[in-house]
């Protein structure tokens, strides 16, 4: 990521050729100036149509009571936003409960999804017999769809019929833990399943990062008498910084977008305690046909995520200095 930015910045800052005769120089300059934009055009068009335009449309939707099937789609100003913040509206309770659910999930899943895969990658980076096999094994769950892992774990975690409680009973642990119908167990299940499911992906990213760290640095550190921990702390971690930034950012966003797991495994139970923001937005927009309200929620949610992402980037830039 950092590489791309540097390349782009270098191009933009490149000074024009110094000693050009006026006439020819101006023409060359003009075509020169257009070149980057021509190269960018294919992506820009796609970004404009599928990125910018939907955002603008979303903003526009969010100030209307919008059901595309009804002839009457009145402009309602900021009412859709006000509804999210005034406690007597129909969506206030559900909305903030979904924000809370998403926050809890993100708070507990991100640290695990950043740290565990790193450990996994360190292990898988060593050379030992069967390494390729284990690399495949840990990555395997990630290739399964959310529907598959959701149904699978719903039955495994069932309080009365599930395998997990049965095994727990065999080793003398309580055999009636309500894994999917009561908090905090529901959170343990959701976070646990997600870690099992997606750790492999982050581990592969880390693995690629680890292989980019020059071997000479480790050798030099060894010569200087650095212990294994010191080599990890002063060679591996700094070497992984850009990868780490990428992993944290994408994991935060992925966790904040959690939908399928709670939709299938806990089904929001108990009550709507584990219903997440994205789920609620989908329900509001597509099932209850209130695209305006759903758009307002999406925008507020996007702003929340933007704040988190900015904080994240700040943190890493600060360390770099």
């Amino acid at each position: 990521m950092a590489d791309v930015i540097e390349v782009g910045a270098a191009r933009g800052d490149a000074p024009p050729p110094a000693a050009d005769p006026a006439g020819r120089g101006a023409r060359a300059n003009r075509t020169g100036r257009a070149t980057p934009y021509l190269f960018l055009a294919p992506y820009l068009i796609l970004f404009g149509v599928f990125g910018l335009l939907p955002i603008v449309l979303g903003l526009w939707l969010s100030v209307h009571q919008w059901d595309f099937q009804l002839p009457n789609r009145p402009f309602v100003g900021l009412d859709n936003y006000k509804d999210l913040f005034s406690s007597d509206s129909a969506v206030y309770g559900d909305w903030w409960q979904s924000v809370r659910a998403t926050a809890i999930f993100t708070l507990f899943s991100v640290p695990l999804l950043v740290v565990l895969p790193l450990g996994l990658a360190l292990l898988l980076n060593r050379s030992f017999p069967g390494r390729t096999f284990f690399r495949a094994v840990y990555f395997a769950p990630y290739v399964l769809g959310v529907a598959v892992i959701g149904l699978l774990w719903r039955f495994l975690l069932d309080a009365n019929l599930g395998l997990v409680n049965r095994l727990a009973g065999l080793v003398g642990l309580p055999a009636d833990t309500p894994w999917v119908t009561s908090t905090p167990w529901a959170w343990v299940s959701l976070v646990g399943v997600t870690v099992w499911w997606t750790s492999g992906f982050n581990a592969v990213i880390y693995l690629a990062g680890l292989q980019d760290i020059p071997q000479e640095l480790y050798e030099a550190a060894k010569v200087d008498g650095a212990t294994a921990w010191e080599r990890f702390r002063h060679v591996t971690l700094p070497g992984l910084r850009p990868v780490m930034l990428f992993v944290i950012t994408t994991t935060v966003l992925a966790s904040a977008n959690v939908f399928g797991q709670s939709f299938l495994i806990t089904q929001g139970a108990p009550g709507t305690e584990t219903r997440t923001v994205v789920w609620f937005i989908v329900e509001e927009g597509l099932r209850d046909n209130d695209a305006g309200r759903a758009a307002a929620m999406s925008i507020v949610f996007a702003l929340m995520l933007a704040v988190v992402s900015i904080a994240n980037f700040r943190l890493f830039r600060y360390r770099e200095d």
Partner: protein
Amino acid sequence: MIHNEMSRRRLLGLGLGLGAAASLTLAGCGGDDDAGPAAGNGGKDYTGPKVDLKLWNGFTGGDGDIFKTLVNQFNTEHQNIAVSVATYQWEDYYNKLPGAASSGNGPDIAVMHMDQLATFAARGVITELDDVAKTLELSEGDFAPTVWKGGLYNDKRYGIPLDMHPLGFYYNKSVMQKAGLDPNKPPTTREEYTAALTELKKSGVQGFWVSPFQFTGGMTFYSLLHQWGGSVFDAEAKNATFNSDQAVEACTWLTDMVKQGFSPANVGQDADYLAFKSGKNAFNWNGIWQINDLKKSSEIQWGVAPLPQIGSQQAAWANSHNFTIVKGRANDANKVSASKVFINWLSEHSLDWAKGGQVPARKTVREDAGFKALAEVNALAPELEYAAFPPAAPGLGEVMTTFYNSFNEAALGKKSPKQALDDGVAKANKQLEDNRKKYGS
């Protein structure tokens, strides 16, 4: 995501709109001429040029195959009408239909649950069918009154009922026998029900697992609430009433099942039914659609009966599949009249449909000897008399979700029944008010 969806639909709409406009001008020649055969006669027959009809439904189970067989039979009998069927998951289907219809990419005929009719009618997706009922001389007498009235919205008919599917009472005969109960005499009253559960408990079986989810606990509560004489909404569906004393009593009776040890706590989704199939419990209140699934598993001895009367009167949750005609294409008179022919034909042939595990809506079919031979499905036909169908008001889907969520909180012991239902009603009333603003009724 939603925005992308919208803009893509728009794009699709543009392309298809042009195509539709072209075909409309062609169809216009015949359509304007009322005397011509193309104008249709409400579904008696169709003599116009050959038309292709698209039909959408959500029959993803074994019922889907039976439906397709029926459609094939129709196609061979009608040389000038070709019906093609597309099947989606109900949930996706209801999300997809409005967009598809407004972009001209939707079906001509759509199968729909009764409780969805009002929403789709109010949103202008489906068209009125009063003339079909009139020409075919269909009236309340031909159907069960509750089912027939369910097809109305604002006094206009939008759906022709195909079937009704109530909640039934399934009992596991071998488990009953082991507990010393007569497997051929399932409990029918509250006293008998409690007595049976007590016997089962003595034999070490928690007989009646109360699911906290809509399938099946929510529907069980819905039935009981009506058995106690309560209702989910008032008559005009203006206010939610599911926190009435009757509702609280019905809910308490259910949640007490856990307290008395007749049901385990924290029953998961589908766990009640899986436990029933594997002989871990004895009674399951479940939809009529499970009959075919149970028939497939030969190792279990089971029976099905109307719901026992626990409250002061009989009542059972029920819903109904209805045929509707989609508005997007309603301008093509040939297609509309051919659609009506199809709807009438299938309604008359709904005996075969009953084999899919549904009670036919049409009286003549229910009185047919062939239907009487379908012992299990026929066993639930008496419930038609007192079936509690959802009321017809647009946008009720989200309010029903609130209803089921409040029951979930009570069943999982997060709140007392009274508290859970009070909180649910408070939210439901706000949602109903929002709906009134939106649909202007």
